[in-house]
């Protein structure tokens, strides 16, 4: 499986992971009660990808809401990316936040402080 697409639902985001072009996108809302269950497949795909990553990997995170349960899982995803980056693959995490959404910007900065991968904070006009 070179391309993984998980369609979004009212509580879970759309996940698009193209291992051929080196693109990972998580967009929408992430507020499931049991986030571990939801993010488990993605973490497993990342472990597979880690064995033979592309030279460059672009990560786009554009979330409207995410609950604290997801925030841990998202950190796990970032940690997998960090390991891949450490292994020599170039990774950039683009963190999108809506204009005036200080909470979302701050959340991105929280991750930036913890994870050793370049982050780009990108403001989106409403």
């Amino acid at each position, binding site marked *: 499986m070179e391309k993984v697409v998980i369609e979004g639902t*009212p*509580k879970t985001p759309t996940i698009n992971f193209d291992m051929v072009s080196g693109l990972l996108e998580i967009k929408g809302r992430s*507020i*499931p*009660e*049991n*986030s*571990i*269950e939801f993010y488990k497949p993605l973490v497993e795909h990342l472990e597979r990808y880690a064995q033979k990553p592309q030279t460059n990997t672009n990560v786009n995170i554009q979330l409207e*809401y995410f*609950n*604290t*349960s997801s*925030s*841990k*899982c998202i*950190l796990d995803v970032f940690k997998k990316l960090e390991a891949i980056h450490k292994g020599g693959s170039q990774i950039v995490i683009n963190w999108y936040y*809506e204009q*005036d*959404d200080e*909470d979302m910007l*701050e959340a991105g900065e*929280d991750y930036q*402080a*913890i994870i050793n991968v370049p982050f780009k904070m990108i403001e989106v006009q*409403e």
Partner: protein
Amino acid sequence: MMVDIFDFYDKMERNNIMLSFKGDITSELLTSILQIMETKLDNMQEEPKIKRKVYNVLVECLQNLYHHMDEMPQGNGTEPDKKIRSAIFMIGKLDNQYNIITGNYIRSRNVDPLKTRLDEINKLTKEELKDYYKLVLNNGEMSEKGGGGLGMIDIARKTGQKLNYHFQPVDDHYSFFSLNIKIAQ
């Protein structure tokens, strides 16, 4: 059993209760409540900033209730077990301030640890809450179902208010825990 429904209605009206629920907290119920609240907030034409904040805090409050149910006895559907597994939730808006109130049973032996946690969180400044959040995020353990211990910290951080709580002893084994969260504009 006769309920003075007007009295009930009047109380809710005076407190400007927008939505309330009492009963079993399920995933489907939370989805419904969140969808209803989102529509209401849109119709009230609240600023995006406020809408987001209320919605975020609502998600955390409700999911706290949901995760907490796991700590209660599963039961075989007998009356006492059903009662223990049900909770109450209300949201209202008064004087430009949203109030989210939740109530649920808790085992009495869990009261002190929870109280200690809440008091610890209430002592922290804005900056300290940010650091504490990052600390628990990075080092904390996930419960099986995905409760990460971050919910209360997040609520305190987003509202900038103290967590206003109360424990009401019910019997030898159980107390009733209520939380009153304010989101000021």
